[in-house]
């Protein structure tokens, strides 16, 4: 190890470092990366590189600009269309984007009611309870740290992923929240499944993915407690998408 930049012997660490610095790794991948990071000077340098990359305005502003038609029949038509398209792009796209993201706003965190769904206590229960105490007190970062430990140990159940995702949403880490709720949804039927669809939809809206959010909201059954909220939100999402 040295103070100089180095390469890491593992594959893909540079990309993982970039995703880590951007808050885009889910809890499990983030834990695995941190376990490696703490002993690897090369990856620590990659994280610095990733942070610098994220701080560059050029990188932030480098949005795709590919959909403008390049093959118009006449130069005049092209000029007019490009001018109109440019105007619409400048005004409408950011406006629509900000409205979509605004729909993903979460005013208050999903409530943890302390419902005991397990017949016999498991070793991870006390750690989960500690995390939930912090969660209920609004200490989402602390709760996340504690749930990270459970997840890294492999002892996390569906509720841990659900509230890890909820904490991520409250901390404005939509990509992590989306991945956590995906684990809950993919885990099959559970008391958390319908709400996981709803909160994943909020995360997707924050990520400006209205189509995925609408699909999630449609998946919520009419007998779910959260159905009416989901239905209202779906109406607003569809209204924005149809504009």
């Amino acid at each position, binding site marked *: 190890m040295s103070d100089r930049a180095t390469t890491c012997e593992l594959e893909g660490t540079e990309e993982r470092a970039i995703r880590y610095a951007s808050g885009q790794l889910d809890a499990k991948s983030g834990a695995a990366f941190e376990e490696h990071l703490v002993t690897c000077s090369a990856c620590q340098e990659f994280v610095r590189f990733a*942070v610098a990359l994220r701080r560059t305005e050029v990188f932030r502003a480098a949005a795709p600009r*590919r959909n403008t038609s390049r093959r118009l029949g006449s130069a005049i038509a092209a000029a007019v269309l490009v001018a109109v398209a440019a105007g619409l792009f400048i005004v409408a796209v950011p406006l629509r984007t900000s409205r979509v993201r605004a729909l993903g706003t979460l005013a208050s965190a999903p409530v943890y009611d302390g419902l005991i769904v397990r017949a016999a206590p498991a070793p991870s229960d006390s750690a989960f309870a500690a995390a939930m105490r912090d969660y209920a007190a609004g200490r989402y970062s*602390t709760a996340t740290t504690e749930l990270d430990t459970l997840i890294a140990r492999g002892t996390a159940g569906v509720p841990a992923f659900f509230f890890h995702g909820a904490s991520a949403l409250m901390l404005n880490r939509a990509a992590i929240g989306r991945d956590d709720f995906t684990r809950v949804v993919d885990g099959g039927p559970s008391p958390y499944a319908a709400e996981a669809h709803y909160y994943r939809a909020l995360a997707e809206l924050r990520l400006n993915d209205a189509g995925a959010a609408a699909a999630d909201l449609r998946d919520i059954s009419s007998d779910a407690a959260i159905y009416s909220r989901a239905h209202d939100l779906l109406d607003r999402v569809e209204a924005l998408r149809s504009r």
Partner: protein
Amino acid sequence: MTAQLSPQQLDTLANGIRIIALRRLGDADAARDVVQETMTRLLDALAKDQLRDADRLGAFVRGIALHVIADHQRAAARLAPLSDDLVPDGRIDSLDGLVRDEDVARLRDALARLSETDRDVLHLTFIENLSPRAVAARLREPAERIRKRKSRALERLRAAFFGDGVGHDSKPAATELHPNRDNPPDPAEAIVE
């Protein structure tokens, strides 16, 4: 098994803990406290032979760090219960202090020299989090070309950021935490593994 952590290994662990702490606390002073406390607990734990598997050093250190961070957050919450919203709370910009403005400026220059398409590839990959296939569809280029663009662009940026220091192999500290056969550690200074 007895082994000694070299000053460089200790530096690496401390730097790693600092990144983890900064990521969650967003405060350089608090991160420094976490590093000190974690290193103290780590050395104590190693002296008590609590690390059974040297390959698990990273997980071991991270586990201690997370406990120290949680303690710190609880203490901060007790001291200032009404200021919870003002705590940076693990925002992604909490790591910004890791780099200097001149590092960012150098990288910015390198980015400006990339083609617009290469910048788009990086943006779509790392900001919009799209897969190479999705990026390829968006930019209407073959996926393989997108992968090459990304690899080449990152290589150029890396060279601009690190200068000539790229390319030295490095093994994680855990793999070096083995008995030093050429220079056996002084038992009085050895850290029990």
